[in-house]
């Protein structure tokens, strides 16, 4: 039975997306409850899979009982099981928040469609993580980019259309270059299954070096555009700024990370250390990562819109993750994976707390945040925790990930990058702290007279409080997930 859980997860997500449109005449509350139950089931079964995998080791799932030479294969190991749990848990929190956040630009008619898209998006994320096949990964990537484009453009506004159009154009280029890379790999190996490709590449790579260089270039750039690695980030701030808050949280917290995980799978599982070292991919990733860390922060300082600022901050934080992966050491990868988790939680907290403020005050510009801490204490506190985490203040999860990354960099004897990490942290202070200070600490008599009226539904406050607590808990007890991450990283080496 436990072997069937991955496919049951996928079918539950797909099935929900199919059933919502059939429910239209019924009260919408019914489908909301159904979606919640499905998400909960998926979360429970993912946790179950993770426990099973950690105890008994990885297992394969073959579609239609065909062997992996001709058939489709899923690999459920610590890597995929762990990240599916992360995705399911974070989406459950964001989903609860989205119940009441209807007013934010989504028309009532579109509201049901939003959940259809959300569930197809989740379906493709699970597919990407489980899939052990280059072409199926491509298919799921395509589903993921189309649905994420749709949840950006669901607000019928001009800016969202522009942002979504730019997103879809760049993402199509990225998909096509990934597919071209897959084709080149298939041309020389004759396989699409990750393990079969990896074994045949080990023996033939000196013969077909040109093919492999071109393939690896196309695939990394394709995934890099989708993951918003620094020079390819131009679509991200617009898309994240104009989308509804829940979409921004999902895109920034989860979707971008999934592409980074695809990159990790490609580099570690398909090409292997030997090819990666021969092509100096390490240095490319280290330089792009650190450039992203610095430039993302510098762009963020210049922003006037809070959601655009958060978007550019994502570019900087992705730089940290790429830097950690680019070290190609176990410590670096552990730090990168921890940062994937902690940045996911922090960014979701930031976007959702800004979303509460937008829901209530209808403001999005940084200058309107003055004194807002008196009126909306809870959401602004969560925002401050997220901001502190982004900067890397101790007691937050952001500190742990930056600390681990610093140690990994020192271990690899690359002190120069430690300076960049610290510099980028200081730049984060420059754009996160003014918001917190102007929200809470501006001495303004008028502001203090206003009673705290946080007329926001509880169902929106509970999720952001959960995220705020999670930031602190992960900062205090990082070993809760660090132990699992150690065994996740062990599967890749």
């Amino acid at each position, binding site marked *: 039975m436990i*072997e*069937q859980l991955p*496919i049951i997860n996928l*079918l539950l997500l*797909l*099935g929900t997306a*199919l*059933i919502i*449109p*059939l429910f*239209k005449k019924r009260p919408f509350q019914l489908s909301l409850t159904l979606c919640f139950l499905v998400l909960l089931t998926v979360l429970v079964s993912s946790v179950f899979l993770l426990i099973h995998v950690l105890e008994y080791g990885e297992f394969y*799932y*073959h*579609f*239609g*009982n065909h062997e992996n030479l001709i058939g489709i294969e899923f690999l459920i190991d610590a890597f995929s099981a762990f990240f599916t749990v992360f995705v399911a848990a974070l989406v459950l929190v964001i989903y609860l928040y989205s119940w009441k956040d209807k007013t934010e630009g989504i028309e009532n008619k579109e509201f049901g469609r939003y959940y259809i898209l959300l569930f197809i998006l989740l379906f493709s994320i699970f597919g990407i993580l489980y899939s052990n096949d280059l072409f199926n990964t491509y298919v799921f990537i395509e589903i993921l980019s189309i649905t994420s484009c749709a949840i950006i453009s669901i607000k019928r506004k001009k800016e969202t259309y522009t942002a979504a159009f730019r997103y879809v154009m760049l993402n199509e280029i990225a998909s096509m270059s990934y597919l071209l890379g897959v084709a080149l790999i298939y041309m020389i190996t004759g396989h699409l299954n990750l393990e079969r490709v990896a074994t045949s590449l080990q023996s033939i790579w000196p013969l077909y070096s040109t093919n492999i260089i071109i393939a690896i270039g196309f695939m990394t750039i394709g995934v890099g555009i989708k993951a918003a690695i620094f020079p390819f980030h131009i679509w991200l701030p617009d898309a994240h700024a104009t989308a509804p808050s829940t979409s921004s949280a999902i895109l920034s917290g989860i979707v971008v990370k999934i592409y980074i995980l695809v990159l990790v799978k490609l580099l570690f599982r398909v090409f292997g250390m030997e090819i990666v070292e021969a092509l100096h991919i390490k240095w490319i990733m280290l330089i792009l990562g650190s450039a992203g860390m610095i430039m993302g922060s510098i762009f963020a300082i210049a922003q006037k819109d809070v959601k655009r600022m958060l978007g550019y901050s994502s570019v900087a934080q992705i730089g940290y993750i790429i830097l950690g992966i680019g070290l190609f050491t176990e410590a670096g990868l552990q730090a990168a994976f921890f940062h994937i988790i902690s940045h996911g939680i922090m960014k979701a907290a930031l976007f959702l707390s800004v979303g509460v403020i937008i829901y209530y005050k209808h403001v999005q510009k940084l200058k309107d945040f003055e004194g807002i801490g008196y009126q909306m204490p809870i959401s602004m506190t969560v925002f401050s925790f997220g901001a502190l985490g982004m900067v890397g203040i101790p007691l937050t999860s952001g500190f742990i990930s930056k600390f681990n990354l610093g140690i990994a960099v020192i271990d690899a004897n690359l002190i120069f990058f430690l300076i960049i990490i610290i510099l980028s942290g200081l730049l984060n202070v420059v754009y996160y702290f003014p918001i917190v200070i102007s929200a809470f600490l501006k001495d303004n008599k008028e502001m203090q007279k206003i009673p705290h009226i946080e007329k926001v539904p509880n169902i929106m406050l509970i999720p952001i409080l959960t995220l705020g607590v999670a930031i602190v808990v992960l900062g205090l007890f990082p070993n809760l997930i660090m132990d699992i991450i150690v065994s996740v990283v062990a599967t890749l080496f």
Partner: protein
Amino acid sequence: MNDTILKSITRIIVPFIQVYGVFIILHGHLSPGGGFSGGALIGTSLILFTLVFGVKKAKVKFSERVAEISGSAGIIIYVLVGIVGLVLAGSFLTNIEAGFPAGVAGTLMSAGMIPIIMIGIGIKVASTMITLFHTLVEEEVR
């Protein structure tokens, strides 16, 4: 647009296109084509109808609600067939081992579940094509 020749010819030709689409769907496991191409043909016939008779009449023939239901139903057929394999043979989308009749190779009644799946895909593709076209046409009017 009120063109009698166009309308009469469309009336004659649409059923033929649709029958051909059904033919392609049902012979998916024997000859080139299958659910996607056949579904695209059926969708195209409805697009032709919309072009000639206008969106209003086309909506009567194939309303949004019908499109939504058939779009969902297409994939639900696929998923249910897959689940049959999961229950009977322990793996999603198992074909012959799950007890689907293999039939004689080369005849219409063969290949186990493949024709059923093809029908599901055909329904889905046809309804998606017509929905996309209707959406695009209506955007322009607005």
